[in-house]
């Protein structure tokens, strides 16, 4: 079937996934496989006085028990952000001196069966000397708090700022009104349904006798993981490591990174000469998957007497956890810190971020990675400012949004908003949401004893940032086009969307394009999936590769047909004679001759700026605190949509994650640094009946000029818009009372009843 860009064919990857034929990491079980279990610290902060593994080593089926001494030659998991401050607070594969959060690994047990490894892990005796657990940002910053990193002067590991503090001060001095908010952005667990898993194998004769690792894991890109895991951690050349990623059961940023178990299964596989598998349990995931958000911000917005923004100031304390993760320190700074003003016309912005170490799990990129946080701050401020000054929440946005004639616009923080029509998009969303009909819906709800409110969010995202280069390798074999692209689907549907791009360009059937990802033997370059970058740069690379294939085929076609040929819809046609040769026909006649490896890097390496507006209406039962999102409207500008069905799916899933953070999700550590939310019994994620199933999605595209598809990226946007729109609706519902995330039923009930808030446990 012919399907091109802008159509919604059903997914090519679905057949295997709905029949049980998908292959996730734990499904891979090589012959002779052994099983590893990590022994984790039950304390948040403790010195290790000794580890006795003798009992565990003697247990049935146990092949090895490793501690920090055994793996001392390996590197730590690198923090790639030049913000480390005075201390390299990087995470080792196993810690031998002190533990820095509950779940920190102290030993790794390998046995013949999973059960044997589990039992033996219980028998590892660790002598701990407890130290005060620095369980929160507030405690971390007190002078007498224990230090997570004793080498550092304090638990504040870095300060970062962007913008112009003097200009911001002047703007605030001249303001007719200043809105001030302290906003908590709760710590959340990524919670991919597939828990992380890793299988290590070692071939001593591989890589020309140097020895080679084979590593299976659910990643967000194999080529970009390899240098860190091979060189930095395992101290081998990249050629000595093949990384394979099969089906991935969700990633959300968290699976981009290296984890201690990845190095441990590789070490054990080499040491034992057997395959070693580690598959986490859900408890491992809650304890050790890199968490998201975890921050507090003091934010201020200065307005003149007409509601025009004069300035924005923000100061954020970002909880890094016990170690500085791969991109951890970058999330609230380089990733999110520069977009804190949204696409409003703000003459003066000053944004300060402090990185704080605590005895909690490390934090890093989680769906949106800094950009939802930034949007949450500015969009809460906008509606609070409107409320305080008696303005309409849409009108204040309309006045301050940049107009198309003001673009491109440099935001004062180093970002250059290129294209978009923000006011038109806002108007489209207001119309789609039936803004005018709100009073009727509220009256109807209030007649039933409910509270009813609405809120909006206008967000902009920096997407496709980080690396703007991507690669595509195309081989035509047996009548099929095999295209490898250096990104990694975690469920987004790359096998279909990329195939649409390539099939359309080549003029062939969608089913004749097979997208291959997740094997460094197939493609050893690429920058992975993250930051909504795949279609933007991976799609462009696929398009380049297809163009190169056509160019190569043209030479053969010209030879065969004797003279100049034109290419259209998969067919070369001789200009003089109208004789034709099909592209696939030429590929079959010249096996391998049409193979290409192409890359794409935009002329102006820079991000894209998807943007959009979410409008939420919520109904609150004041007697129970139970909330329902009764109407939800999304209008986005993602540029060109390759497959609208997939894009809408991304938005729906993103909204669910934003809703989860807004009203239920919360990773809670108590005052001893104990994780209170270690299972689905304690940590709520949205279920089907929490969702606004009638939510609508529309698009007002302004194509991105910086890539040939015009795509802007769509993977994270749903989450970005959902947190502020839902929280703004709740504040409206509560008559303007402040509420922080997660706005749980208890909090909402207390606010609705006019009761005091209960002090948080932590």
């Amino acid at each position, binding site marked *: 079937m012919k399907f091109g860009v802008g159509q919604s064919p*059903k*997914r090519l*990857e*679905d*057949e*295997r*996934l*709905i*029949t*049980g*034929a*998908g*292959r*996730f990491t*734990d*499904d891979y*079980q090589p012959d002779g496989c052994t099983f590893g279990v990590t022994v984790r610290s039950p304390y948040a902060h403790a010195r290790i006085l000794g580890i006795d593994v003798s009992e565990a080593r003697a247990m049935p089926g146990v092949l090895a028990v490793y501690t920090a001494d055994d793996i001392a030659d390996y590197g730590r998991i690198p923090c790639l952000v030049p913000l480390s401050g005075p201390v390299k607070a990087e995470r080792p594969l196993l810690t031998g001196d002190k533990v820095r959060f509950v779940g920190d690994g102290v030993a790794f047990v390998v046995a013949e069966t999973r059960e044997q490894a589990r039992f033996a892990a219980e028998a590892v005796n660790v002598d701990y000397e407890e130290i005060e657990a620095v369980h929160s940002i507030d405690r971390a910053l007190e002078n007498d708090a224990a230090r997570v990193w004793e080498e550092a002067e304090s638990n504040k590991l870095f300060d970062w700022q962007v913008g112009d503090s003097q200009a911001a001060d002047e703007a605030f001095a001249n303001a007719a009104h200043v809105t001030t908010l302290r906003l908590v952005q709760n710590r959340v667990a990524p*919670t*991919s*349904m*597939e*828990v992380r898993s890793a299988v290590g194998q070692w071939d001593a004769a591989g890589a020309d006798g140097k020895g080679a690792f084979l590593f299976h894991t659910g990643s967000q890109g194999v080529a970009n993981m390899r240098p860190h895991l091979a060189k930095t951690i395992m101290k081998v050349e990249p050629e000595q490591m093949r990384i394979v990623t099969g*089906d*991935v*059961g*969700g990633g*959300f940023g968290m699976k981009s990174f290296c984890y201690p178990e990845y190095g441990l299964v590789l070490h054990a596989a080499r040491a034992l000469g057997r395959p070693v598998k580690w598959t986490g*349990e*859900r*408890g491992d995931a809650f304890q050790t998957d890199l968490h998201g958000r975890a921050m507090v911000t003091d934010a201020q917005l200065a307005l003149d007497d007409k509601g025009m923004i004069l300035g924005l100031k923000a100061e954020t304390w970002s909880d890094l956890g016990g170690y500085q993760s791969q991109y951890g320190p970058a999330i609230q700074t380089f990733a999110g810190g520069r977009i804190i003003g949204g696409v409003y016309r703000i003459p003066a912005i000053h944004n300060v971020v402090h990185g704080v170490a605590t005895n909690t799990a490390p934090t890093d990129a989680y769906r949106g990675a800094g950009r939802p946080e930034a949007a949450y701050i500015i969009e809460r401020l906008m509606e609070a400012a409107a409320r305080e000054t008696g303005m309409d929440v849409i009108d204040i946005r309309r006045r301050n949004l940049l107009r198309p004639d003001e673009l491109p616009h440099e935001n004062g923080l180093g970002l250059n908003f290129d294209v978009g029509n923000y006011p038109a998009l806002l108007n489209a969303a207001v119309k789609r949401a039936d803004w005018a009909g709100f009073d009727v819906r509220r009256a109807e709800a209030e007649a039933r004893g409910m509270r009813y409110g609405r809120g909006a969010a206008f967000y902009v995202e920096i997407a496709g940032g980080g690396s703007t280069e991507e690669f595509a390798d195309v081989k035509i074999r047996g009548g099929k086009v095999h295209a490898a692209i250096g990104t990694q689907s*975690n*469920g*987004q*549907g790359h096998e279909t969307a990329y195939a649409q791009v390539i099939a359309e360009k080549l003029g062939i059937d969608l089913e004749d394009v097979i997208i291959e990802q997740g094997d460094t033997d197939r493609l050893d370059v690429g920058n992975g999936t993250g930051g909504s970058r795949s279609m933007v740069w991976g799609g462009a690379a696929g398009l380049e590769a297809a163009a190169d294939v056509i160019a190569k085929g043209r030479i053969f076609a010209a030879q065969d047909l004797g003279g100049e040929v034109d290419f259209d819809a998969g067919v070369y046609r001789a200009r003089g004679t109208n004789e034709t040769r099909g592209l696939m026909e030429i590929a079959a006649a010249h096996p391998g001759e049409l193979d290409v490896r192409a890359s794409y890097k935009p002329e102006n390496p820079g991000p894209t700026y998807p943007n959009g507006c979410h409008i939420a209406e919520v109904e609150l039962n004041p007697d129970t605190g139970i909330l329902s999102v009764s109407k939800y409207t999304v209008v986005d500008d993602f540029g060109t949509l390759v497959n609208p*069905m*997939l894009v*809408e*799916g991304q938005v*729906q*899933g*993103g*909204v*669910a*994650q934003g809703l989860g953070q807004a009203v239920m999700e919360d990773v809670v550590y108590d005052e001893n640094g104990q994780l209170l939310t270690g*299972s*689905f*019994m304690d940590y709520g*994620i*949205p*279920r*089907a*009946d929490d*969702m606004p*199933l009638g*939510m609508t999605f529309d698009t007002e595209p302004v194509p991105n000029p910086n890539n040939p598809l015009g795509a802007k990226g769509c993977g994270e946007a*749903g989450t970005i818009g959902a947190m502020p729109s839902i929280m703004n609706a709740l504040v409206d519902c509560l008559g303007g009372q402040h509420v922080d995330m997660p706005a749980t039923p208890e909090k909402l009930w207390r606010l609705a009843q006019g009761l005091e808030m209960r002090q948080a446990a932590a």
Partner: protein
Amino acid sequence: MTPMTLNGTPITVDAAPTELLVNVLRDDLGKTGTHIGCDTSQCGACNVLMNGEPVKSCTILLAQAEGAAITTVEGLAEGGKLHPMQAAFKEEHGLQCGFCTPGMIIAGIGIAERHGAGVDDATIAHELEGNLCRCTGYVNIVKAIRKGAADMGAGA
């Protein structure tokens, strides 16, 4: 040795009767379409049909499955033709990463059996309380189950 019927075929299983059914299915019988998403029977990724009814195979001991007819996601298609509930998930884009999907399809079949071809969205959403998905936001899962139920009712 535990006798049971797996996807229509009588078998005997050589595993400890105290082993969890999900582990037996995955590790001993190679039915890796049944997934493990939690350890507390919250997520439903391990749903299978036991004598026609959905059960969480992480809460069933092999001994409890003695003599039972177990159907995993691998056993739903008949004669190369997808079960209507499977087809509906593809048709309605009811899956993204696909990890929760086998459990969702099994749950959907149960919902259709209990509520019939005309089951409404609110009922479906409520009945899905034992199944977690992190990718889709459930909108299309509910649509898929609605369609799958209708198609099952029509004998599709």
